[in-house]
């Protein structure tokens, strides 16, 4: 009898704990959305920010966030893909592989502020790129590489060895097998991994404060020549992203409507992460359907 009473009490306690956690998480999400969504308007999403007056928007910051994300992915994806292929297809179990795996693990656990400071020291100061989108993209690449590499490796690892054997039996070299058989088969889950990591990159701020900078100069959205200073595409201009913007206006405290702007910007960030999560799964499914006969 006693064991049954204990069982009931323990189950009750677990229900309470889970209920509390659900409550905390729901309150958190609810607070962000309820406070943020009313501030969202076309004007808020497109207007440039104002430092000393109320009524500014987040247009430039939003554009910077997306541009930085695309540049980061352009740099980090090929490297992560190569590294993932080597680790899963070629690497033998020896000291070199163990060492590299350890290095990747360490890189993934480094605090992002340390990665940002390293980017600041090497790229901004030593290589003299200044506070720029390019510096920010390289810093974010360092931050993104370990996770992306692991997700690529995981995707390749989930492909059955039968496919590799079939490739070898047809007389294909290992590289040709990887390129024409394994990669297409792994594509859906690779894409899912890439989009999920994009969500993480999109909200990162600590690594960007001292690499992409904390200022958002006015942009001329009619000028798409990447070599002009006012052009949105210029990779060498300083660019404050949305996440950095939230941090900056809250720690400076000179913007009169900082709380409203950050509430709106937080809601945008959370919605963006949500969209990335949904997009990741949806894209993975769509590509899987297109590549296979599972219609």
């Amino acid at each position, binding site marked *: 009898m006693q*064991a*049954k009473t*204990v069982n009931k009490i323990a*189950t009750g306690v*677990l229900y309470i*704990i*889970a209920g509390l*956690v659900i409550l*905390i*998480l729901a309150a*958190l999400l609810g607070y*962000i959305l309820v406070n943020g969504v009313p501030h969202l308007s076309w004007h808020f999403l497109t207007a440039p920010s104002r430092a000393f007056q109320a009524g500014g928007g987040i247009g430039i910051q939003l554009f910077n966030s997306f541009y930085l994300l695309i540049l980061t992915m352009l740099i980090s994806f090929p*490297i992560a893909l*190569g*590294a993932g*292929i*080597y680790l899963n297809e*070629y690497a033998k179990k020896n000291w070199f592989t163990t060492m*590299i795996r350890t*290095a*990747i693990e*360490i*890189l993934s*656990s*480094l*605090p*992002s*502020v*340390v*990665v940002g*400071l*390293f980017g*600041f*020291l*090497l790229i901004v100061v030593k290589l003299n790129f200044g506070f720029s989108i390019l510096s920010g993209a390289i810093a974010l690449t*360092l931050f993104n*590489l*370990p996770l992306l590499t692991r997700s690529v490796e995981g995707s390749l690892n989930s492909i059955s060895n039968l496919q590799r054997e079939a490739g070898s039996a047809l007389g294909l*070299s*290992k*590289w*040709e097998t990887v390129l024409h058989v394994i990669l297409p088969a792994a594509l859906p889950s690779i894409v899912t991994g890439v989009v*999920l990591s994009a*969500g*993480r990159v999109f*909200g990162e*701020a*600590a690594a960007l404060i001292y690499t992409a900078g904390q200022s958002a100069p006015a942009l001329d959205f009619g000028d798409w020549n990447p070599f002009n200073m006012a052009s949105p595409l210029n990779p060498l201009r300083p660019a404050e992203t949305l*996440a950095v913007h*939230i941090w900056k206006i*809250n*720690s400076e405290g000179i913007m009169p409507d900082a*709380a409203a702007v*950050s509430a709106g910007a*937080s809601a945008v*960030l*959370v919605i963006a*992460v949500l969209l*990335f*999560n949904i997009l990741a799964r949806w894209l993975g499914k769509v590509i899987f359907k297109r590549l296979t006969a599972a219609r």
Partner: protein
Amino acid sequence: MDQIRESLLKTSVATKKERFGKTITMAALILIGLVVISIFYFVASKGLATFFTDKINFWDFMTGKTWNPSTNGSNGKPQVGALPMITGSFMITVLSAIVATPFAIGTAIFMTEISPKYGAKILQPVIELLVGIPSVVYGFIGLTVVVPFIRSIFGGSGFGVLSGTVVLFVMILPTVTSMTVDTLRSVPQYYRESALAIGATQWQAIYKVILRAATPGILTAIVFGMARAFGEALAVQMVVGNAAIMPQNLTSPASTLTSILTMGIGNTVMGSMQNDVLWTLALILLVMSLIFNIIIRLIGKKGELK
């Protein structure tokens, strides 16, 4: 004859492609290795300059309680005692892990053992979403909700270790929970079945069998959460108060390694002593994340033996 011989001995196109592919993928991998090595080299060389170039005593740095790098103390040496920040970082990390652990384990058990259907359908996606929420958003919520709340209850400014703990607790909760869920799911189903078959109640099966089997994985999840809390910069910086003094109590303004680092690095000149000491703080962060890494590996190894 010679033609056949030649074509047999010559490197084929496929082999050339193979070599090409192997080389570029290996180059990508080596690049990552080089990045890690150079991070360590640069941060260490900058961080150690405090002791070798600026001749600051290592022990004074680690145990000094006054942080004021721009002025000299009574002994004519710069006041660079990092103990307040080290204490702040450790306090916030340990406290948030202590608070988060029971919640994370309880929720994970609920999701895997008690109500798997509800857990997988509702809790799982919400937790996955929360893992991805940017840390500045947590910081902003902390600033607008947690800090005023603590101010109204305990008085003072509301900034301090307690606010930092609350923010980090909410921040690492999803991470620790989802890792614990993975661990509990990897406990073989026949463990549960055999426990129930010999007459254990569900709680006995959970407490005496499943949790025991999952201990290494749960420990890893907690250490992982602590590593994340220790390295978190902006969310903490926004609520901790950033006063580089020893924390008197949980509600007085304090500081962490990361908060002083983010505040200070833009206001000091590269290569000066004031700048070097900040790099030393970064080096401490780097070493601590290494230590967390080693702990996780040790737990993994111990778990393997069972």
